[in-house]
């Protein structure tokens, strides 16, 4: 599948943003983080900006961005529509959460409820993002049991490592969040490894023979294409460029996205004090770059069954 830059930026940026809002919501509601106004402004502000930047970016790949509001109407059947509704809905408790924290500064039950609702909205939004891909039966590399956990775990890992970096940079004790980030990174890494193993060892049940129904006569091969230059389907579904570099890109994702930041997060969690920011900020930057590589691969390694009509032997 063609990796659209706007969609990669959207899922990475909003994934981190919603992950951060989920973690900060739970930690504040539980009283595990100091409710300083600085953390309120920087932490919630970072979550808000990354989420909004991602959502705006997601409209750039549309043919008609000015009609994007229509995407909120079909939540009864469409996961893309549900994602939009959940994304917009999350701004309501987030506004209350931010207002109560930054302007009122009080630890009230209402604030805790708003924090938890923000976390819930963030979780539901990323859940819907994962389900958009998970439910596409045409793409084996997306329609499998690992797609949804991968999205959720990488959102959590990205959000937690950024929150840990922000807490540490503001001079507070980030060890709790950093341990969570380390655990989430380890789980996300394992999940992604299992995903790569799955797509390396299995293919879509459809074949050129079942796609045409001609398998009863023997083995099928393409004789002549229906057209002489690439059409929309071949450009959108038959993307080849990054697939040739998949091995190298996977190694980069392992090191930059998971291995190195995991080590930095553990070191940051154990060191505590002001020094931890020097470990956690690079860890957060590495995770972000690693997620971008991983997301690129998520698209580039995905084979659509329509390619079976264009000469692919399997999908």
């Amino acid at each position: 599948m063609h990796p659209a830059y706007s969609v990669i930026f959207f899922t990475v940026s909003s994934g981190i943003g919603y992950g951060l809002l989920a973690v900060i919501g739970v930690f504040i509601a539980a009283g595990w983080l100091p409710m300083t106004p600085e953390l309120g402004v920087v932490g919630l502000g970072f979550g808000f900006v990354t989420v909004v930047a991602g959502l705006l970016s997601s409209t750039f790949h549309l043919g008609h961005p000015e009609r994007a509001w229509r995407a909120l109407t079909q939540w009864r059947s469409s996961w893309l529509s549900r994602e939009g509704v959940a994304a917009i809905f999350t701004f309501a408790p987030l506004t209350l959460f931010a207002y109560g924290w930054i302007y009122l500064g009080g630890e009230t039950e209402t604030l805790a409820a708003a924090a938890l609702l923000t976390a819930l909205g963030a979780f539901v939004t990323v859940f819907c993002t994962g389900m958009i891909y998970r439910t596409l039966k045409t793409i084996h590399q997306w329609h499998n049991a690992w797609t949804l956990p991968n999205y959720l775990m990488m959102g959590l890992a990205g959000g937690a490592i950024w929150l840990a970096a922000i807490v540490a940079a503001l001079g507070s004790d980030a060890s709790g969040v950093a341990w969570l980030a380390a655990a989430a990174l380890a789980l996300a890494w394992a999940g992604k490894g299992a995903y790569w193993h799955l797509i390396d060892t299995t293919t879509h049940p459809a074949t050129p023979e079942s796609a045409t129904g001609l398998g009863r006569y023997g083995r099928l091969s393409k004789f002549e294409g229906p057209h002489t230059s690439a059409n929309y389907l071949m450009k959108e579904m038959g993307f080849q460029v990054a697939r040739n570099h998949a091995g190298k890109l996977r190694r980069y994702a392992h090191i930059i996205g998971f291995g190195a930041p995991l080590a930095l997060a553990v070191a940051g969690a154990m060191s505590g004090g002001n020094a931890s920011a020097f470990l956690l900020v690079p860890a957060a930057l590495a995770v972000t770059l690693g997620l971008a590589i991983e997301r690129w691969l998520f698209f580039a390694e995905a084979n659509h069954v329509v390619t079976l009509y264009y000469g692919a032997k399997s999908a």
Partner: protein
Amino acid sequence: MTTLPDTIKKKLGLVIDLDICVGCHACAVNCKEWNTGGHMAPLTDLDPYGANPDGVWFNRIHAYEVEAADGGVNMTTYFPKSCLHCEQAACVTVCPTGASYKRCEDGIVLVDEDKCIGCKLCSWACPYGAREFDSDAGVMKKCTLCIDRIYNENLEAVDRVPACVSTCPAGARHFGDLNDRNSDVARLVAERGGYDLMPEMGYRPTNKYLPPRPRTEAPKSPPMPEPAIENPILRWADRFLSR
């Protein structure tokens, strides 16, 4: 509304006979001709006379070689493919805006271009490649089953069929109600063993394909006699060297 209708009165669709399709592309050309001025017009072409022409077509004619198993006869098969107007049309249910819909009166899957935001998700959900994005108009386009022909009372009754069907010189394309057991198309499907493409996907396409009849091999012709050599020297050389 992107939920699928519970019941469909008619199931209008195509039956395509792979036994007699000659791969002439007339269906694709007439489709383009009609539909670029029809319900989903235009069928934009970019760089049509340049080095890399790129355009929207509703109908694509593939060609495959089938290497026969266990010593049978190999064959070449032309394979026209357009929207199959599936009963479980995932292209409809994934649409976030309600632009994609399936009509309950005849099962035709259409796009309301005024509501389409051009997110392309429907084309990702379609296993058959029936939807092509018009990057110029910024909306998704697809086969309408010539909805502007089949109900068009300004046309002679004989012409109220999709453009691809009306133009096929081999009679390889048939149009009708596949929900009606007594219709010509339903009978054709029953008699010839019409089948679904990618049945394992569970989309339950309305359009059916009729399998090519098994090919028979022409009998081997007797070996040609060697032409006689006129020149006596050459004849002697041939005999000498053939020893």
